[in-house]
């Protein structure tokens, strides 16, 4: 500590006391200096984190007043319209929180909004991670933890909004029970064990309560802690920028910068939730009335994150198989398992698929710009469209009503769109990505148009191009081109014999997948790129031949076993050698 920095005596004393018992001055100093790269999208995960913190705080408050019981009571409270009605204690106590506990309605609404924002933030955060390739080695485990957290959030939310035992959430619970029954072999047992018998029974609210306030929050807390520790240990990823490399991380130190920014962010998240809870009413359970199994209101929609399941149930055509005295209720089973299975299972599987298809087993800390990973981005958009169609179908009655389209037409459109939409989205996105790549290559090669026309001594008119700034150049040149597989050999040589690695079903599929990843616009020649010469000048017309051309280039390197390939990324351009490319 330098002499000219004054540290108050009390603080010095405290530091001394702690250090003599725990040591760690050196470690904490490193911690304080830890670098955090800055980008707006890095705060998305923090929205989820702070929503969770707020959920814990507000949830604790609510649990002081909520009675998780399905015992019948007759209501005599402040809300006159329900006076004298029979209802469960859970519903009555939620009315009490809303009407008789000061600040109770505000806290309840903050809690509910926080749950919705929590899931929004997780979703958008995951999209950011996916589209920038942040899940790549070494961060695959954190990606998986994220997927588990998302799934836990779904169940946590469903159980949470079902607790008040109001008409709307009760209908949701009825659907949940019906879906459980539809599971083959164990379905009725699961439903009877969870509900303590037939629906609705007297056990489901207290059981959901303990799962909602203890079990799942505990799991989420543990996994969030692991998530953060791993992030901390592996260091944060960074967007491509000048001097930002896989071995060199630029940013601002944890103390005082990151800690101050993130605290500000906590206040903003809390403020946003408070504003929502003040001005946007959510889940006014007193309007729905207590749950009875024979009542229902039309346009019953669940909270937004369950919308995809609701939409899948509505979209599914009737399909049931009866055989050997058993019933397989595919009408229920497919919507329940397939969409989320595809999305979450696919997300979990993707890092390994990408590794397999690109042969890239190296560590990545600098992120990809989405356009530079066309296949990934296109798959991501296809999944977003798939999700979006299912989600929108969850409100098909509202859509039909608002747009004055017959209800069945809406459902039929969604049935077609859920299959056609993602396919179209894939190809459209890929073309857009390639187009943007071409524009980037063009920018690097010719620089920016200045709009200034000059006349040459020989009479020729020309527009002056200005080279892109060094910062922008660094970003543009951060593009990486995947290797052609199999490395070191043509997939099929001139005699039509395929390379050993390209044989068999898996081998062929791998070459096929690889070719999709190879469709990319290379950076301008002369920048030190060893690959992609065959693509020069024109774009996607050459995909089919691409593998071979790349392989031909790769043939000069010694054959190597794919999985042992230490560093599958192609050489990065040497910024110095790139020089001043702009031509006038």
């Amino acid at each position, binding site marked *: 500590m330098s002499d000219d920095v004054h540290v108050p005596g009390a603080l010095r004393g405290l530091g001394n006391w702690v250090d003599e018992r725990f040591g760690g001055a050196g470690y904490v100093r490193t911690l304080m200096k830890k670098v955090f790269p800055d980008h707006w999208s890095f705060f998305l995960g923090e929205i989820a984190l702070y929503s969770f913190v707020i959920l814990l705080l507000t949830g604790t408050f609510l649990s002081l007043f909520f009675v998780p019981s399905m015992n019948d009571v007759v209501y005599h409270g402040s809300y006159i319209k329900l006076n004298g009605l029979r209802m469960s204690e859970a519903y009555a106590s939620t009315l009490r929180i809303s009407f008789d506990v000061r600040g109770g309605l505000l806290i309840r609404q903050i809690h509910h909004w926080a749950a919705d924002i929590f899931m929004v933030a997780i979703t958008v955060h995951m999209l950011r991670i996916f589209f920038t390739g942040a899940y790549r080695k070494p961060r695959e485990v954190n990606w998986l933890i994220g997927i588990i957290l998302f799934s836990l959030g779904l169940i946590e939310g469903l159980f949470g909004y079902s607790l008040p035992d109001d008409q709307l959430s009760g209908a949701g619970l009825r659907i949940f029970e019906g879906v459980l029954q539809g599971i083959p072999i164990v379905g009725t047992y699961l439903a009877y064990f969870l509900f303590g018998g037939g629906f609705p029974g007297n056990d489901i609210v207290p059981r959901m309560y303990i799962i909602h306030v203890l079990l799942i929050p505990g799991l989420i807390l543990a996994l969030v802690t692991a998530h953060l520790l791993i992030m901390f240990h592996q260091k944060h990823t960074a967007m491509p920028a000048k001097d930002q490399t896989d071995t060199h991380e630029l940013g601002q130190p944890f103390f005082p910068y990151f800690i*101050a920014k993130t605290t500000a962010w906590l206040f903003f998240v809390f403020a946003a939730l408070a504003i929502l809870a*003040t001005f946007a009413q959510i889940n006014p359970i007193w309007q729905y009335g207590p749950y009875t199994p024979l009542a229902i209101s039309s346009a019953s929609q669940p909270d937004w994150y369950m919308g995809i399941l609701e939409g899948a*149930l509505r979209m599914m055509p009737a399909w049931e198989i009866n055989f050997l005295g058993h019933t397989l209720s595919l009408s229920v089973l497919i919507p329940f398992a397939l969409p989320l299975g595809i999305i979450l299972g696919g997300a979990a599987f993707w890092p390994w698929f990408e590794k397999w298809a690109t042969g890239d087993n190296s560590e990545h800390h600098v992120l990809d710009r989405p356009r530079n990973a066309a296949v990934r981005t296109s798959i991501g958009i296809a999944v977003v469209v798939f999700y979006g169609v299912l989600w929108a179908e969850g409100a098909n009655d509202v859509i039909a009503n608002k747009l004055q389209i017959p209800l069945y037409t809406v459902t039929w459109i969604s049935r077609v769109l859920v299959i056609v939409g993602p396919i179209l989205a894939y190809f459209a996105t890929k073309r857009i990505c390639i187009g943007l790549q071409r524009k980037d290559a063009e920018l690097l090669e010719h620089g920016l148009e200045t709009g200034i026309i000059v006349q040459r001594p020989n009479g020729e008119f020309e527009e002056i191009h200005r080279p892109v700034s060094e910062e922008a150049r660094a970003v543009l040149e951060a593009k990486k081109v995947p290797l052609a597989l199999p490395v070191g050999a043509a997939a099929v040589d001139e005699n039509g014999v395929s390379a050993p690695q390209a044989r068999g079903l898996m081998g062929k599929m791998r070459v096929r997948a690889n070719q999709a990843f190879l469709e990319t616009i290379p950076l301008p020649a002369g920048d030190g790129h060893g690959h992609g010469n065959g693509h020069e000048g024109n774009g996607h017309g050459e995909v089919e031949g691409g593998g071979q051309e790349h392989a031909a280039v790769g043939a000069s390197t010694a054959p190597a076993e794919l999985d042992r390939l230490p560093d599958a990324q192609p050489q990065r351009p040497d910024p110095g050698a790139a020089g001043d490319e702009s031509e006038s």
Partner: protein
Amino acid sequence: MSDEVPEGEQSPARPHRVIGTPLPVPSSVDVAERESDSAATGREKMPADPADPVSAKRAERIVAACFIVAFIAGIGFIAAYVGLEVGPLDAVLRSNLALGLSLSVALTALGLGSLLWVRRVMPNVETAEQRHPMRSPSKDREAFQEYFAEATETSQFVKRPLLRRTLMLATLPLAAIPIVVLRDLGPLPGTSLRYTVWKRGTRAVVYGTNRPLTPAEFNTPGSMITVIPEGYEDDQDALAKAGVILIKFAPGELHIPTNYNGGTLVSTMNWTVDNIVAYSKICTHVGCPVALYEQTTHHILCPCHQSTFDAANGANVIFGPAARALPQLPLTLNSQGQLVAASDFTQPVGPSFWERG
């Protein structure tokens, strides 16, 4: 060539920012520390003051103002809590507005103040850190492997399969216990999903008023009403399966409904009374109450997932995810001329399940 751009004429090319790059914030990076490891290369000190003291001073005032606003709003929250009553709906909404508004203002001001502090008052510092490969150095890995192998050897775990196997054996039942003890969570389903509380002679009472019904009281063609079995008016578990809708048809509108009795398709015209037909109100999809009825088309619609049933034709499915018709309840009249069940449903009501067959 770039040098041909005349001085001062760069503005047309200026506004081009590549998407995805950081904002051009560090216009005045006060410290750009390139090597984080200070030991070797004498570290640059963190700057004590911002580069532009005048603007920092201005920012300081704004930050302080934000904090004062937060303070006042915080006091406002406590005042609103103490001062405003709750109870009636309008009082609750008033209290919610006052509490929420003061809390929102306090938190926004606090956030804004903190953000301006770090962005405008603190000197702008950018530092760098080396990233190291996650993989441990080979030396460490070898040393680890060596010790692990030795220690495993020492533990005798590998050498003594008897110990290893009996240990695993011992843990098996213990691992199963957490599953086994869940058995008493609920009764086994048995055949309970196949039956409802309706039986021969059970009077159908109107849901809500609990009054029995005669065909004469329910004689407007096209109307629908929900009835429940008498004696189970407050039994939610019974009602969740036994809810029934009655639909009155004009003569000739009702086609011969058919229904599965056991495994065979039977005519159920004699299950109706005076063109009144009774169907289960529980959707065969996932169990929502099928509550919407369209007179002109005789369609029963489930509001949850829009399974649509044709009431004039045995409640067969005509759209949506439900795979089975709504089960029909055999109706008859008792000695007082009131509508009663002739028997329970002849097939399970509600969502399909594995054992249903």
